[in-house]
């Protein structure tokens, strides 16, 4: 821990430690070296969120590297949450990228296994999976707190990184989800961002279990929200996205309004969720994944009543 008492001193860490309800966003880097395109996606999030997740070749589709896009955000005065998957890097590249990210001023990192390359646009590729996401969390923590690589060699200047992990409260087998969350926290996850939540009933149960297990006192859990743009999108997610739980009632609710009004109905549902999360025991904030909808974030943040974002020194 640094002299300031912060692990990395990221804005997200400060906001969470000060006890504010955090609000994070997400941005997928472009399918090219187009910095202008990245700026178009990230600029609407300025002052609207505490940190912006930068996805790492999400769904195994090749895009600008998440480290480079994160560094571009730092240069533009925005705070990235650098996502790193285990699919494409062995422990040599992982540790090197953690050092590089820290050197570039990146202060948050989200540790993920990564979608299998079968989903993406290079299904012929070889994957790595040298270590898994829980080991990745432990490695980042060891590098930061002990100043050591996996092999116990000393690091001359440890990285300053606020360590995040993902949790899917709806993945199977359900008996194990809270335990898996506990494993991630034990490994060193400072914060958790959940998979998009649609089934509020199941999420309430999951949070209750997390609170009962004493997990919420050891980490900061941000509830994942992705507004549905249409009933079609809801249907698609229910059917084709593994590990996603979209209740039929929600699909019905979206279908119940005129096609032109479905996006608004999706936002309304998201706003109701955020309102509930603000009150829910153990929930420290919301992670808003407005996929290809970055320009709508200011409006959603405004209507969710999370503005202005707190400034903590």
């Amino acid at each position: 821990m640094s002299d300031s008492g912060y692990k990395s001193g990221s804005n997200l860490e400060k906001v969470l430690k000060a006890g504010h309800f955090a609000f994070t966003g997400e941005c997928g880097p472009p399918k090219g070296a187009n910095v202008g395109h990245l700026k178009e996606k990230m600029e609407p999030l300025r002052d609207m969120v505490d940190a912006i997740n930068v996805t790492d070749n999400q769904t195994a589709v090749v895009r600008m590297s998440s480290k480079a896009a994160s560094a571009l955000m730092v240069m533009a005065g925005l705070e990235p949450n650098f996502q790193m998957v285990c699919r494409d890097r062995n422990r040599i590249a992982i540790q090197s990228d953690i050092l590089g990210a820290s050197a570039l001023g990146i202060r948050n990192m989200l540790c993920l296994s990564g979608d299998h390359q079968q989903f993406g646009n290079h299904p012929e590729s070889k994957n790595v999976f040298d270590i898994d996401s829980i080991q990745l969390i432990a490695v980042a923590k060891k590098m930061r707190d002990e100043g050591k690589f996996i092999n116990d060699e000393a690091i001359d200047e440890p990285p300053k990184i606020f360590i995040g992990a993902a949790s899917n409260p709806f993945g199977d087998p359900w008996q194990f989800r809270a335990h898996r969350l506990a494993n991630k926290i034990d490994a060193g996850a400072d914060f958790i961002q959940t998979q998009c939540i649609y089934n509020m009933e199941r999420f309430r149960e999951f949070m209750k279990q997390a609170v009962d297990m004493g997990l919420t006192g050891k980490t900061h859990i941000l509830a994942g929200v992705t507004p549905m743009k249409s009933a079609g999108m809801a249907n698609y997610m229910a059917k084709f996205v593994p590990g996603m739980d979209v209740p039929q009632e929600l699909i019905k609710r979206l279908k119940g309004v005129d096609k032109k009004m479905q996006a608004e109905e999706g936002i309304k549902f998201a706003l109701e969720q955020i309102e509930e999360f603000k009150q829910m025991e153990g929930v420290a904030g919301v992670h808003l994944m407005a996929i290809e909808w970055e320009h709508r974030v200011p409006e959603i943040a405004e209507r969710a009543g999370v503005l202005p974002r707190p400034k903590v020194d």
Partner: protein
Amino acid sequence: MIVADRKPLDEIQEMIKDYDKIMLVGCKGCVTVCNVGGLKEVQILASALRIGRKKDGRTLHVEERMLERQCDPEYIEQLRDSYDSVDAVLSMACGVGPQFLSETYPSQRFYPTVNTKFFGGAVQHGIWDERCAGCGTCVIHYFDGLCPIARCSKSLQHGPCGGSADGKCEISKETECIWDTIVKKKVDQGRLEDLRLYRAPKDWRTARDGGPRRSIREELVK
């Protein structure tokens, strides 16, 4: 055992298109058990190749041979007197066979007729599944005798990932999520706590990542 699939006929025909006389060598080991390179399969492939060639108005001579094993120099030697009487030799053994042949008879040309896939077994008649990736350091006792290294699509030592749904892996509804099975077995045995333990990154030196491997049994080395 080692499980393999027969290469498509046209791929094999393309390999031998310039030859008139070939030898087709089967193996009585794993490939016989998984019905891909035993006596029956040698006979079937030999006639398919002959018939195919006849359609082109040419004749193909195929000498059919069976070896006890193709992963043992002792049996490979049995071809010494005949290997160069043909234009090329096709092996129906796993990837080991054509290599042992090639190393023993450097002047001849050898071709594989099967795609060697994995270490596994028959889960029902006609269906074989992978069980082991030969990582060189077996850890399945931590997972109740089930191997996440070979059977989880991401080789996770801490699973399941968020993509596990209804017992299936995120990569396909046809693929079992072995982590789902591991967790359920732990739940049934009341030992879910076992999965709360942290497992250090694996040492992959004993797997292929440490380079080609060798196994030495000192007491047997003369």
